[in-house]
């Protein structure tokens, strides 16, 4: 328990909250780089995944890439790029982008693939062209799964961005490695706790986003009670009119 007290003491120490390398600054760096990586990786992986899911072509590529890259140890990629590009941000950013691509690709591809073919056929039948099918049908319907992919990618980026401090002076990994060198366990544990909180908060935010990403029409369909009774009294209708969900 003493260890935990040391960690809390490090977190609340006012000296760690101001000046260069302060906690707020480290958190800001951590989030900023994570966001940068997410944007780059999304720009690469999402369109490819959507294209594969939309056309159904290159499915093997998506499965292989998202499965195969998992075996690549991030630390190995990170140190290798570190040797090639030197100390600084480019190496960790590239390594993290590679790490983030599989979940993004898998999410986009699986999301688009999960849209019922009959729905897409129906969209074409009512006269939608391809961009409309993608933008108005496939994208909204697949959004929860696509956001799920983004969620797991951001989680991995935030978790692994600690390692970036191994070859660049930035983020919440910095105090962890500093504590490791100086054998200051309180500092290590304190910074670790902050990263864990950060990861949980971001994950929670994305979980919420995932819930909100369900299109309104689909959500309405899930509540069974909706319109289970005719809106008008039967006596006036004479014959039940087939309304909405009524069978």
């Amino acid at each position, binding site marked *: *328990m003493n*260890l*935990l007290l040391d960690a809390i003491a490090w977190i609340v120490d006012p000296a760690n909250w101001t000046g260069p390398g302060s906690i707020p600054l480290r958190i800001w760096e951590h989030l900023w780089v994570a966001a940068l990586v997410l944007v780059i990786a999304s720009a690469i992986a999402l369109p490819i995944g959507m294209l594969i899911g939309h056309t159904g072509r290159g499915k093997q590529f998506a*499965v292989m890439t*998202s*499965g195969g890259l*998992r*075996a*690549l*140890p*991030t*630390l*190995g*990629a*990170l*140190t*290798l790029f*570190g*040797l*090639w590009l030197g100390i600084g941000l480019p190496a960790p950013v590239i390594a993290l982008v590679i790490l983030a691509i*599989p*979940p993004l690709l*898998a*999410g986009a*591809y*699986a*999301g688009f*693939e*999960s849209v019922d073919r009959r729905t897409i056929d129906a969209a074409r039948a009512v006269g939608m062209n391809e961009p409309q099918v993608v933008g108005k049908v496939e994208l909204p319907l697949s959004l929860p*799964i696509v956001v*799920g*992919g983004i969620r797991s990618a951001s*989680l991995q980026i*935030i*978790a*692994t961005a*600690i*390692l970036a401090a*191994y*070859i660049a002076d930035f983020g919440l*990994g910095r105090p*962890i*490695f500093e504590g*490791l060198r100086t054998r200051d*366990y309180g500092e*290590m*544990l304190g*910074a*670790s*706790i902050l*990263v*864990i909180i950060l*990861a*949980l908060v971001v*994950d929670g935010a994305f979980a919420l986003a995932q819930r909100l990403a369900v299109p309104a029409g689909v959500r309405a369909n899930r509540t069974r009670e909706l319109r289970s009774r005719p809106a008008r009294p039967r006596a006036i209708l004479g014959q039940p009119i087939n309304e909405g969900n009524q069978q």
Partner: protein
Amino acid sequence: MTWLWSNLDLVGELIVVHLALSVPAIILSFVVSVPIGWLAHRYRWSRGVLLSLCGLLYAIPSVALLIALPVVTGQGVRSPLNLVVALTLYGIAVIVRTSADAFDSVERDIRQSATAIGYSEVGRFWGVELPLAGPVLLSGLRVVIVSTVSLATIGAVIGVQSLGSLFTDGFQRGIQAEVITGVVATIALALVLDALAVLGGRLLMPWTRSAIAIGRAGAGTPAKQARAA
């Protein structure tokens, strides 16, 4: 290549250490996850709780977890035991959902037929549900194998020996061949263990031999595949 030839002993030694870290973690997480997955499948109300709790484990960054674990285990930060516990927790996070899905994938008709011909609840689990859930369980196990072997290298940054030591050592001394050797050895080890799991699956579940491609894809909807990834 010259670096590899002159350091074959070291690489061999690290492969053994790496196996000693990752194999127990893989087995433990599988053994722990199957009952949890079955509970989540059997008792609907527990599903949300169990699956989100295990999902939460996954949200904890690995380096942070490695440093925080000694508070619980009482071991030193550099103790290999911490790494095994951490890897097991991640393994559980990855596979619990798949194992719940695995038991869900057994059709209700089959379950009812088993009861009808006289299986007890326990006998039905061992004789019917577990074997039929096998292919999906195997697909989850394969994900755990690959990610655990890859993740075990992380320990190197806080001083736990593994193939990851080749990364940190190679980086500090500027030996590119050493880092590349580490990457290749880690991937190779993951693929070998994965192949062994597939082989084991074929031997234990001969009926899946023709349908192995289906089991591989997670035997399910694209959404399940996405979760596995």
